[in-house]
C-alpha cells in the first residue's frame, strides 16, 4: 500500500517525452489539471546541450550519457521460447532515453508519415493480392484508423517541429522533388529541404538514372528561423554532426523541451515531478477503471497520485511493462494465443550498404545532421508489386551523412583487417571517401514475437523485468534481402564508386542480436485496433478494459512501418487527444463498443 496519498488531479501522465508533454499541453489548455511523472531529471536544451561540451562522443554516444540506466530498469531477452531469456546487462540494440524530453532529445529528427496502405495493411494486401497472400505466420492487422483521419494531426506535428522537406503529393497533385508515393498532404512542409553533401548528391543522381524517385529526407533539423504553432523559436541547423544520441544546443533539432515544455511549463494546470518513477497503475475495486498511479519519489517514498484519467506516455517497452505489472488488460499467452498485452511486439529490419569513392571525392562526413539524406521510397510499403516476391512490407533506401565522429565512424571496405598497420592505412584513405546507405525496413508481427514478465530477474524497484522474445520473421529476411539488393544496384551505379559492401542484420541464419545498435524503434505490445481480442486499445487509444486509461506511443503499432516512428506516433497522439477533448472528457466512458 502506498505510504502517502496526494489530492486527486484530473489527469496523471506517466513520462515527460514527446507524447507526455504534448498530452499535458493539449489537456491543460482544455481545462484539465495535469501532473506528469518523469522518472529522470530536469534538463534544458539551452543549458544542458550546448557545444562544445555536448560534442563529446565518448560520453554521449558510447557511454550513453542521455540514456536510461539499466541498473534501474532493463529487460531480459531471448530469440525464442525454448531459450532462457537473460538480462540486457548493457544497452546496445536500442537506446531509450530518460529525463525531461525523453528519447525525443536524442533522436535524429527523421520525420515521416505512414503510407495510407500501411495503416490498412491487411485489408490492402487482401484486396490487391488476395486473402491468401499475407504469410500465415504473420499477425499483421489494420490500425483501425486511416490516413485521412490522421492527416491533420501528422500535418500539425510537422508544424510543431518546423519540418524541412519537399512535398511530393499536395492535395492529390504530384509534385517534382518530393516523395511521389506519400499520401496526399494538405500543406507543404513548413521549411525548405536541407542542403545536400556530395555523397547524398551522387546517390540521388544514380537513383534517378535507374528510374527511381529520389527526394530529400523529411527532417526536423530545421533549415530556417521558425516559430511553431505553440510559439517556440527554432534556429537553422548547423550540420554539426551531433544529432543522434545528443541533444541539440543550437535549438535547431525540434525536441520536446523547446517545442512543447517551454510553452506549457508556466501554465496553471501544468505540473511535472522529476525523479518520479511510476511503479504501477492502481485499479478501482470493480477493475473497470484506473484510480491513479503509485510512484517512488526522489526520496524513495512511495506516493499515490489519484486521478480521473491516466495517460501512459512512457517509452513503448515501459508502457507495456507498466501494464503487465499493474494487471491492466489481459497478458498475451503465445501458447493459447489469447490475451493482448505484450502481443505483436515488432522492431525494425536494418541492412546497410557502404560505397567507397575514388580520390576525386572528399565527403567531409563530419558535416552532417540526423536527417540529412536523400531517399528512395520505391521499395517501401506496397509502393512496388509484391505479387511474385513472396513477402509483404518493404523499406526506404537512404544515403545519409549524419556524423563523422571518429570512434564510431570507421568505414573500411570488406577484407580490411580489424586492426594493425594495414587497417590504419586504409581508414586514413576511406574516412572521407564513403557513402553511407541504409535500408530501413518494416517489421511484421508474429505470434512468437511478444513481451511478458520475466520469472527470474527484477529491477531496482523489485518488479519483475520485462521479457522480450524476438527474432526476425522469415518474411522480413526476404524483404530485407530484396530491398538491400536494390540499394546495391544504386550504389554500383553511383559515380566515382570503386567498391561496395553490404551487411544485412536479418540475413538467413543470423538471429536478432541485442548487442549491436540497430534502431530505437521498438513497437507494439499494446496495439491499437477495432477488435478487443487483437488490440489493447480501441482506435482512439483508449483501453478496452479500463476506459479512463489512454495509451500513447509506438507500443500502439500493430506491426512496424518501413519509416521512423516519431511522426506516425505523434499523429496518433494528436488524434487521441482530439477525441479526449471533443468526446471523452465531457462524458467519460468507452468511446467504442467492445
Amino acid at each position: 500500500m502506498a505510504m502517502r496519498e496526494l489530492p486527486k488531479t484530473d489527469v496523471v501522465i506517466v513520462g515527460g517525452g514527446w507524447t507526455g508533454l504534448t498530452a499535458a499541453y493539449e489537456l491543460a489548455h482544455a481545462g484539465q489539471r495535469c501532473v506528469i511523472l518523469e522518472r529522470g531529471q530536469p534538463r534544458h536544451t539551452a543549458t544542458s546541450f550546448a557545444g562544445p561540451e555536448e560534442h563529446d562522443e565518448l560520453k554521449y554516444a558510447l557511454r550513453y550519457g542521455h540514456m536510461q540506466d539499466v541498473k534501474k530498469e532493463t529487460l531480459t531477452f531471448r530469440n525464442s521460447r525454448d531459450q532462457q531469456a537473460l538480462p540486457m546487462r548493457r544497452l546496445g540494440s536500442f537506446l531509450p532515453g530518460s529525463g525531461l524530453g525523453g528519447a525525443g532529445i536524442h533522436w535524429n529528427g527523421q520525420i515521416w508519415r505512414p503510407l495510407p496502405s500501411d495503416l490498412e495493411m491487411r485489408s490492402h494486401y487482401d484486396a490487391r493480392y488476395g486473402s491468401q497472400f499475407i504469410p500465415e505466420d504473420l499477425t499483421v492487422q489494420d490500425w483501425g484508423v486511416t490516413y485521412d483521419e490522421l492527416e491533420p494531426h501528422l500535418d500539425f506535428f510537422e508544424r510543431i517541429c518546423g519540418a524541412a522537406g519537399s512535398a511530393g503529393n499536395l492535395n492529390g497533385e504530384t509534385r517534382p522533388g518530393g516523395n511521389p508515393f506519400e499520401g496526399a498532404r494538405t500543406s507543404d512542409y513548413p521549411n525548405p529541404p536541407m542542403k545536400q553533401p556530395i555523397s547524398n548528391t551522387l546517390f540521388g543522381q544514380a537513383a534517378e538514372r535507374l528510374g527511381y524517385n529520389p527526394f530529400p529526407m523529411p527532417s526536423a533539423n530545421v533549415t530556417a528561423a521558425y516559430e511553431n504553432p505553440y510559439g517556440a523559436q527554432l534556429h537553422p541547423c548547423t550540420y554539426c554532426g551531433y544529432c543522434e544520441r545528443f541533444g541539440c544546443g543550437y535549438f535547431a533539432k525540434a525536441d520536446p523541451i523547446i517545442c512543447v515544455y517551454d510553452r506549457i511549463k508556466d501554465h496553471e494546470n501544468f505540473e511535472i515531478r522529476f525523479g518520479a518513477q511510476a511503479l504501477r497503475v492502481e485499479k478501482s475495486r470493480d477493475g473497470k477503471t484506473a484510480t491513479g498511479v503509485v510512484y517512488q519519489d526522489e526520496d524513495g517514498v512511495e506516493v499515490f497520485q489519484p486521478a480521473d484519467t491516466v495517460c501512459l506516455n512512457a517509452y513503448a517497452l515501459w508502457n507495456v511493462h507498466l501494464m503487465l505489472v499493474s494487471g491492466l488488460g489481459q497478458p498475451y499467452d503465445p501458447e493459447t494465443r489469447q490475451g493482448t498485452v505484450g502481443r505483436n511486439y515488432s522492431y525494425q529490419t536494418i541492412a546497410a550498404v557502404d560505397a567507397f569513392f575514388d580520390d576525386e571525392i572528399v565527403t567531409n562526413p563530419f558535416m552532417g545532421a540526423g536527417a540529412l539524406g536523400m531517399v528512395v521510397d520505391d521499395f517501401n510499403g506496397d509502393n512496388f508489386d509484391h505479387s511474385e516476391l513472396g513477402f509483404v512490407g518493404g523499406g526506404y533506401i537512404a544515403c545519409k551523412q549524419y556524423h563523422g565522429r571518429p570512434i564510431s565512424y570507421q568505414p573500411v571496405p570488406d577484407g580490411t583487417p580489424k586492426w594493425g598497420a594495414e587497417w590504419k592505412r586504409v581508414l586514413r584513405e576511406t574516412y572521407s571517401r564513403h557513402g553511407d546507405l541504409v535500408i530501413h525496413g518494416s517489421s511484421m508481427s508474429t505470434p512468437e514475437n511478444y513481451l511478458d514478465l520475466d520469472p527470474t530477474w527484477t529491477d531496482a524497484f523489485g518488479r519483475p523485468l520485462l521479457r522480450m522474445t524476438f527474432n526476425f520473421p522469415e518474411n522480413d529476411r526476404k524483404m530485407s534481402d530484396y530491398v538491400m539488393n536494390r540499394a546495391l544496384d544504386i550504389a554500383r551505379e553511383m559515380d566515382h564508386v570503386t567498391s561496395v559492401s553490404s551487411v544485412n542484420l536479418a540475413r538467413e541464419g543470423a538471429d536478432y542480436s541485442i548487442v549491436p545498435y540497430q534502431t530505437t524503434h521498438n513497437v507494439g505490445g499494446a496495439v491499437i485496433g477495432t477488435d478487443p481480442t487483437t488490440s489493447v486499445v480501441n482506435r482512439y487509444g483508449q483501453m478496452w478494459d479500463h476506459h479512463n486509461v489512454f495509451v500513447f506511443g509506438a507500443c500502439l503499432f500493430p506491426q512496424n512501418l518501413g519509416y521512423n516512428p516519431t511522426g506516425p506516433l505523434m499523429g496518433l497522439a494528436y488524434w487521441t487527444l482530439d477525441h479526449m477533448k471533443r468526446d471523452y472528457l465531457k462524458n467519460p466512458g468507452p468511446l467504442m463498443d467492445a
Partner: protein
Amino acid sequence: MTRRYSRRAVLMQIGAGSAAAATLTSPKHAFAQMDSRPWFFLTDDEARWLAAICDVFIPQDDFPSASQAGVVDYIDLQMASGYGKGEGLYLKGPFPEGTPEQGYQLPYTPSELLRRGIAAARDEDDLGAMPPPDRSAYVEALSERTEPIGDVPASAFFNELLSLTNEGYFADPIYLGNHNYAGWEMVGFPGAHAYYLDRVDKHNLPVDQPPMGIAHNGGRSTLPRPIRSEG
C-alpha cells in the same frame, strides 16, 4: 609536432611568477605531486602489457602508436572511473551462460574483467619479451581463441581491449588519449567545435583547419605517462 608539454612543465609555468626555481623540488601546486603518482588503476606490469597489446592494434606509422598517443593513460582513467566500475551495467545475478545474441553475461565490471584477463594472460606468456612479429601473431591468436583465459572468456577480454584502444585513440583528449590529436589528425576530423552551415554543400573541398577539442587547448592533455621498463 614538437610542442609537447608535460604536466610538470605546465605547472612550472603556472608557478613561474612566484618561485619558479623552487617548483621542481617543492611544488606549490596541489596537483604537482600527481606527476610522480602511480597509475589511477593499473599496476606498472599491467600498463606494460597493455602498451604492448595496444601498439599491435595501432602501431606507429606517420601517426603515433596507441601508447604514444596516450591510450594506456586513457584506459587507466576509464578503469578508475564510472565505466570501469560498472556504471551502465546491470549486475544482478544469477549469471547463466547465454548465446552471443544475448550479449554480455559475466559478473565482472570492465575493470575486474581487464585485471583478471591481464593476470591470466601474463601467467601464460611473457608478451614483453616477444619481438614485434611474435606480438602480432600473439594478438591474432588471442582474437581467435575459444578456450577461456583463466576464468574470463577470451572473446569478451579481446573485444574489451580492442574497443578501449580504439576509443583512447579517437576520443576527445580530455580523456587523456588522442594526445596532440593523433587520431583526429590521422582521419582529418576537425573536432568538437562544429559549424558547417556554409560548407556542407560546397562539394569536395577538404577542410584544412587544425582539430580542436572540448578543452580548446591543442590536444595537449598531458604527456602520456612513460611506461617504465621492467625491474
